[in-house]
């Protein structure tokens, strides 16, 4: 009856391939098509510039509160770039870049932040779930969808995003546990951006890493430099391939940084030092990929300029399209759509009630004006 160490059959790796200076570890460097790399760069740039545009629109009062993604582009795009179109994506509320890569329009982002429920409409054929604001809640859904995929004998996988804060919710633990027990093809992608509003990662959990939590549930876990798009891509791809071939779930912790405020209602100066942001600015994922691509001769100054122009134009057109779309969405009666497949009698009555009232209001306004 000895006391002896239990041999736990998992190791925990940290993966980094492309460092802050844009230098690459050639042994670990993945073989990625030039087209994919440029597409990723363009998407990072587009989302960075769009994020900046959202901030100015919010400051002008043209949209409401939103959650900036600045700094997290690599850990979102590197992960979703491994998906097939028919796979499933479960975002939290800070995955604009990931959702956009998968086909969600930037116009719909504006609609949501502009206060229209229509922003979360998912077009037929797109296997993205709408944004989930209650922290951690969507993680379980990705286990359910993955279970259904497996049950049907399909080859797809379900990828779910959540933050460092999200790992404190019971739903996270319950999801990992279920996925482990039922060996569902679920990929858990944690965006450890160091902060959950004002709570630093170190106060969120006493664990050294978030990835190690996967090991407790018998699931492979890995920590990667989340500002290194190559590392994210490699680690997630490995997990995706494993899941697709029946090897079950995995968790990837992307160590990144929330370079902006939590939401536009937040003032980070109250709880974090400017120096921390300065440090992380040096590790900017966009600069890093740009350096890499330039060093490899895959991207030139001129091409960068023309991509900047291109995304600027795309954003301008998106904002214009959004403003045009607003005109179609002015009818408050739309709030009664999609409550049930068929509106029950009491809701028909309430809809009538609002409709009469709106007509009265219009009449009054005409009489007054």
């Amino acid at each position: 009856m000895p006391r002896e160490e239990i041999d736990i059959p998992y190791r925990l790796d940290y993966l980094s391939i492309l460092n802050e200076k844009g230098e690459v570890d050639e042994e670990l460097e993945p073989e990625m098509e030039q087209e994919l790399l440029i597409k990723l760069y363009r998407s990072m740039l587009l989302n960075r510039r769009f994020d900046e545009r959202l901030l100015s629109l919010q400051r002008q009062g043209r949209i409401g509160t939103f959650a900036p993604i600045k700094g997290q582009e690599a850990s979102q795009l590197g992960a979703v770039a491994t998906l097939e179109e028919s796979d499933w994506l479960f975002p939290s509320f800070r995955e604009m870049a990931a959702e956009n890569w998968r086909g969600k329009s930037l116009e719909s982002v504006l609609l949501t932040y502009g206060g229209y429920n229509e922003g979360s409409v998912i077009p037929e054929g797109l296997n993205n779930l709408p944004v989930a604001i209650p922290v951690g809640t969507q993680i379980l859904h990705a286990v359910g969808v993955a279970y259904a995929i497996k049950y049907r004998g399909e080859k797809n996988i379900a990828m779910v995003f959540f933050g460092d804060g999200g790992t404190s919710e019971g739903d996270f633990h319950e999801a990992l546990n279920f996925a482990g027990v039922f060996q569902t093809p679920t990929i858990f992608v944690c965006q450890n951006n160091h902060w959950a509003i004002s709570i630093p990662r170190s106060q969120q959990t006493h664990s050294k890493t978030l990835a190690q939590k996967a090991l407790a549930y018998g699931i492979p876990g890995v920590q990667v430099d989340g500002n290194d798009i190559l590392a994210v891509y490699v680690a997630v791809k490995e997990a995706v391939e494993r899941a697709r071939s029946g090897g079950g779930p995995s968790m990837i912790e992307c160590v990144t940084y929330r370079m902006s405020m939590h939401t536009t209602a937040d003032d980070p100066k109250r709880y974090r030092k400017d120096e921390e942001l300065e440090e992380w600015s040096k590790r900017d994922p966009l600069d890093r990929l740009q350096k890499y691509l330039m060093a490899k001769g895959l991207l030139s100054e001129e091409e960068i300029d023309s991509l900047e122009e291109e995304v600027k134009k795309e954003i301008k057109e998106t904002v214009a399209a959004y403003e045009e779309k607003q005109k179609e969405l002015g009818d408050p009666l739309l709030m009664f759509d999609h409550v049930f497949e068929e509106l029950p009698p009491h809701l028909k009555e309430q809809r009538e009630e609002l409709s009469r009232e709106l007509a009265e209001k219009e009449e009054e306004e005409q009489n007054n004006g």
Partner: protein
Amino acid sequence: MAELTMIQAINLALHQEMEQDNSVIVLGEDVGVDGGVFRVTDGLIEKFGKERVMDTPLAESAICGVAIGMAVKGLRPVCEIQFSGFSYMCMHQVENHAVRLRGRSGGRFHVPMVLRAPYGGGVRALEHHSESKEAYYAHTPGLKMVIPSRPRNARALLVSAIRDPDPVIFYEPKAVYRAFREEVPDEEEAFPLGKSEVVQEGKDLTIISYGAMMRPTLEAAAKLQESDGVEAEVIDLLTISPLDDEAVNQSVQKTGRAVIVHEAHRSFGPGAEVVARLVEKSFLYLQAPIARVTGFDVTIPLFQRENDYLPNVHRILRAARKTLEFVA
């Protein structure tokens, strides 16, 4: 006396209660260093330290469940749930334990905890940040459900909630948080739970409301006076459960007509309970059907449409006039 916003008034209540009773503990997400996302707990951590002002991990069920344990051991935890829309994650702890431990243990244990949460619409927020689901809690035996409407009553009711021997859900109307200031006495003040307030006396009609809806309600009452010469009696419930049915019935027995206003959904909402109590106890005094002006039975829409969801002065006036015009 100082002129305070509701945020400052609640903050004052927390400061004073923590000063005079070291069993009072504040816990929640971002309540310490950040002072709460609405700054309601501002300055507490500096004054009382991080043992008494706990910046917790992001886990509402844990906040509530841990608070139950603290309360059992004699502390008086005041939990902040960042938005009421995230309080459902506490629901199983509330329903399964907070409200039952007293009975289950034959009175050996009780749970003097407060769960504060900002609720309600009208602040141009994201999804899950605008709801008004007090009925979930009001429906639960063993739970008190309190909703103040102004800085002064917010402060005085929170003091009572903290001192109460049983669990209290304290919903704060975020649309009122910084909307106006009111004189709040420096010295201690506690208003009893379970008591409503007649804010304006009148003889023609009773309008019953609470929380953020008190503002349009009072505005409508003033308009009725001004343009219709109608004297409305206005009741601010303050505590949703236990409902002050004595006051409500007394008023309606005088006026014979009643309108209830709340932003919560209509079906099975607090208004339905008020109607029931009136029908049960004042049936023969009623001179018109009781009207409800409420949010519709749809999830509150995002902000472009939320003003059409929420009750407003126009809607209250229309309901009041219809009630007044009714002849049997």
